[in-house]
């Protein structure tokens, strides 16, 4: 057989890679084998462009039970329990078919969590879209509606609370939205399940939906740019079946309570191929299957199609020989048919048969360990020469009050109520901070503890300064869980970038990874897993480099959760941290002055760490009535948001500074606005002083107006109700149906 250039191109393989395949096999591959290599060596599955750099991330820590390499990471949360979590992207499918793309993304990450033996208890999502108005506004609104409905459609149905997330709207995402979904589960720390095959002769089971022709080469699609021909690749999108997954979830958790299971992995990207060779590779074993036993939805499917299908809601399990009846009984109870499709072998080979005839025979090592690794060239992008400067003098003067209302109405800053009311935020009665009030917080039943989760990532900062942008993303996500009173104990990350074959993109990627690694080390937050999504481009235009960081934090006493809202008249407002007058990359510059310019805010990791420590201690001491960090929109937005959802409670604030714009809208990092009872003010200020954290009383809670003076001059004086109206309705206005 000769494999020509077009066949290779169709499989996304280079001639060099083809030669590697021949070397690994010591012969030419069959078509089925070529298909298998093509998906396993796709960027999506092999991490060939990113692997070298991901090694720089710190992945160990005293609480880490499982780092990268399994279906999800796990950290110890005490009481013999583990928090299991991971983030995953479904960007490309969500652009093509927003509802199903987002829904199946949710389905995929949930499977990664319960395959670890964890009961999924919370979902988060980080979304990026283009502007809701302007030339692509109508299309973007449709995408937003579809994505939000799809996330809700899947999560609500399967019954896992969606407890938070974040959404930003920026031009570069118009042709390539981002849909990143995080799932958190709780497992018995001593009973984490691995995706491992071992024990020669142990049976291999397939369970879940039947295999169809859908999604063939989905992994390859996620490894290529979009262009006007992408429409042809469309059938790669699948329809999610949350009901099937609910059955799988319950049946698998029930099976995991027995000791009949050796290992399990879901069939996500690259389907049966990936699960078969990865499980074998992890266990140092081989797996032999016969595709004739694979349940099929369509007739006449070839081994090639069966191995590459990405039909959703399927799992591969290895169980102990002799326990088959018990396993089958559990799946039968849930109306799932478990099909015995093969056995574990000792030869380290993935062997695929079709009615007994061998159609593929590949050493696991060749597929997994010997996959190509590229050290792609990098080059600092030229845009950085001019984008990082701002000509402040050229900015038109704007009334601060109007600027605040403008920024509050920016969809990125505005309340996301329109979105999160479409999600079941409470199912399983663990959510102990209502949606929109803080990082997502779930209690851990049967303990006193709670877990806070936050996701963050500012694409503008990363565009202007990728290294610092990634550091800021980690710092902000950690700060957000800290504001809930939690200690950050682990992080996951989803690295969304353009085409890594372009040196400028690769440079952004490497800078971000290195920045992230440095921040993780400094703040002592290990990375336990993640995902890389490259080729986020349409017609040669890349998205902003967008690392999304999810941080998980632990609260020892669930009764001490802190939220963002001011609570009581007369409470003292204290600013922890200090402003450095940084407007670069700010929401204010973008919204009010239509500029994405300047350098990202500076970040001193030692100061950040001290700030977080003081806040954690103050929360544990019970001093904090509220806590909210300063991010998009600066302290003006922070203060406004502290007043919102309180029934109109206001505040009177005095800030330092000479320029109101800078004092109000600077996005200097490492700042938290807290409110405390007057009797706790001294305690807090002394604790901060002892830790070397700048802290200052900036005002008091009370009245029904938000009044801010800057350098003694009145800058903003607005009724909370008026500002809140702007903030709450800004997003839904775009989605109001036209009256008949």
């Amino acid at each position, binding site marked *: 057989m000769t494999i020509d250039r077009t066949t290779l191109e169709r499989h996304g393989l280079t001639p060099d890679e083809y030669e590697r395949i021949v070397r690994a096999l010591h012969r030419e591959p069959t078509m089925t084998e070529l298909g298998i290599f093509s998906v396993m060596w796709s960027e999506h599955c092999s991490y060939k462009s990113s692997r070298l750099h991901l090694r720089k991330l710190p992945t160990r820590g005293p609480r880490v039970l499982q780092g990268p390499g399994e279906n999800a990471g796990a950290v110890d949360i005490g009481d013999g329990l583990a928090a299991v979590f991971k983030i995953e992207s479904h960007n490309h499918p969500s652009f093509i078919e927003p509802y199903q793309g987002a829904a199946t993304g949710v389905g995929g990450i949930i499977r990664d969590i319960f395959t670890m033996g964890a009961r999924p208890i919370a979902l988060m999502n980080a979304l990026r879209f283009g502007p809701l108005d302007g030339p692509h506004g109508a299309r973007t609104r449709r995408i937003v509606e579809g994505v939000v*409905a799809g996330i*809700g*459609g899947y999560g*609500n*149905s*399967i*019954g896992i609370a969606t407890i938070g997330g974040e959404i930003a709207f920026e031009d570069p995402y118009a042709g390539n939205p981002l849909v990143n979904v995080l799932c958190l589960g709780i497992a018995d720390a001593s009973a984490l399940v691995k995706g491992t095959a071992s024990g020669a002769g142990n049976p291999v089971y397939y369970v879940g939906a039947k295999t169809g022709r859908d999604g063939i080469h989905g992994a390859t699609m996620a490894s290529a740019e979009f262009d006007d021909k992408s429409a042809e690749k469309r059938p790669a999108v699948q329809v999610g*079946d*949350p*009901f*099937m997954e*609910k*059955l799988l979830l319950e049946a698998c958790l029930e099976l995991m309570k027995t000791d009949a299971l050796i290992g399990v992995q879901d069939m996500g990207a690259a389907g049966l191929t990936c699960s078969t060779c990865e499980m074998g590779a992890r266990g140092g074993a081989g797996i032999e299957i016969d595709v004739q036993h694979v349940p099929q939805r369509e007739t006449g499917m070839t081994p090639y199609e069966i191995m590459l299908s990405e039909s959703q809601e399927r799992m591969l399990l290895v169980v102990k020989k002799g326990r088959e009846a018990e396993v089958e009984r559990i799946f039968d*109870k*849930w*109306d799932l048919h478990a099909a015995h499709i093969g056995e574990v072998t000792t030869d380290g080979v993935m062997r695929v048969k079709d009615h007994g005839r061998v159609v593929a025979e590949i050493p696991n090592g060749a597929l997994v360990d010997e996959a190509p690794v590229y050290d792609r060239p990098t080059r600092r992008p030229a845009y950085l020469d001019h984008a990082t400067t701002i000509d402040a003098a050229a900015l038109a003067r704007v009334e601060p009050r109007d600027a605040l209302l403008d920024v509050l109405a920016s969809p990125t800053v505005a309340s996301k109520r329109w979105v*999160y*009311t*479409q*999600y*079941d*935020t*409470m*199912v*399983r*009665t663990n*959510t*102990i901070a*209502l949606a929109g009030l803080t990082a997502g917080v779930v*209690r851990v*039943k049967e303990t006193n503890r709670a877990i806070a989760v936050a996701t963050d990532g500012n694409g503008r900062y990363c565009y202007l300064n990728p290294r610092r942008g990634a550091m800021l993303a980690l710092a902000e996500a950690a700060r957000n869980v800290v504001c809930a009173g939690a200690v950050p104990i682990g992080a996951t990350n989803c690295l969304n970038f353009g085409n890594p074959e372009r040196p400028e993109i690769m440079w952004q990627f490497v800078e971000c990874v290195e920045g992230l690694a440095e921040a993780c080390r400094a703040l002592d937050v290990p990375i336990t897993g993640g995902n890389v999504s490259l080729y986020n481009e349409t017609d040669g235009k890349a998205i902003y480099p967008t690392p999304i960081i999810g941080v998980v934090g632990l609260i020892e006493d*669930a*009764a001490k*959760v802190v939220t963002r809202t001011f609570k009581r008249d007369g409470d003292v407002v204290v600013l922890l941290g200090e402003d450095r007058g940084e407007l670069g990359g700010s929401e204010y510059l973008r919204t009010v002055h239509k500029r994405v310019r300047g350098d990202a805010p500076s970040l001193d990791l030692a100061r950040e760490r001290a700030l977080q420590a003081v806040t954690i201690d103050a929360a544990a001491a019970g001093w904090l009535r509220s806590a909210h960090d300063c991010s998009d929109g600066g302290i003006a937005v922070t203060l406004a948001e502290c007043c919102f959802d309180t029934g109109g409670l206001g505040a009177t604030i005095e800030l330092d500074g000479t320029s109101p714009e800078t004092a109000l809208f600077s996005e200097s990092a490492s700042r938290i606005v807290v409110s405390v009872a007057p009797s706790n003010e001294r305690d807090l200020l002394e604790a901060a002083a002892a830790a070397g954290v700048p802290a200052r009383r900036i005002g008091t809670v009370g009245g029904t107006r938000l009044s801010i003076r800057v350098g003694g001059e009145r800058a903003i004086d607005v009724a909370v109700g008026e500002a809140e109206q702007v903030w709450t309705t800004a997003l839904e206005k775009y989605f109001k*149906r036209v009256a008949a």
Partner: protein
Amino acid sequence: MKFAVVVFPGSNCDHDAYHATRHVLGQDAEFVWHKETQLKGADAVILPGGFAHGDYLRTGAIARFSPIMPAVLEFARRGGPVLGICNGFQILLEAGLLPGAMLRNRDLKYRCEHIIVRVEQTDTPFTMNARRGQQLRLPIAHGEGNYYADADVLRTLDAERRVVFRYCDERGEVTAAANPNGSVSNIAGICNEARNVVGLMPHPERACEGPLGSVDGLVLLQSVVTALSREGAVR
């Protein structure tokens, strides 16, 4: 007393009902799988929320054929207290234990948030500890809670005082703005003629503990404990 929480494939608030009755209320509670045919000696039955059979076809349409349903019908016929919450309410409608049907929410969107209902009737086993006119702050979480019944049925429901809960605003007024899903007459929950079967869209079981944002749902579950201690259980 003992609650049976029926679990259909796709139920997802089964644990919430179990947790509320067992751990918050301190009563006995047991899950009953839909393929069983006995209620295991329960004194009250809860059909929990969720998406039984994915809610594919119509909400509750497939679940009503479950093997357990004849036992539920028989229990209800003998006067046993049955509470259908959200999807459980939809199943009761499909099973004909309660009249009417569910349509998609007026704005076609799933909605999850706290709303207020007004207790209209207190002579049901699930509201006897409540005051008439009492406002309860409860979460809703549904895409198809737009209750529909034709004019005849509505007249009967009114005449027989069978509308148990109505959506209202903070002042207790039943207004269009306070109606989250388009339900006819702001109906949030109803009961059968014998008053022992109650269905409602809001989730009282999610509102039984302070940290969750409301404890107003407790009164429903406590009522049935009171009712049974007064009147004795049906077996």
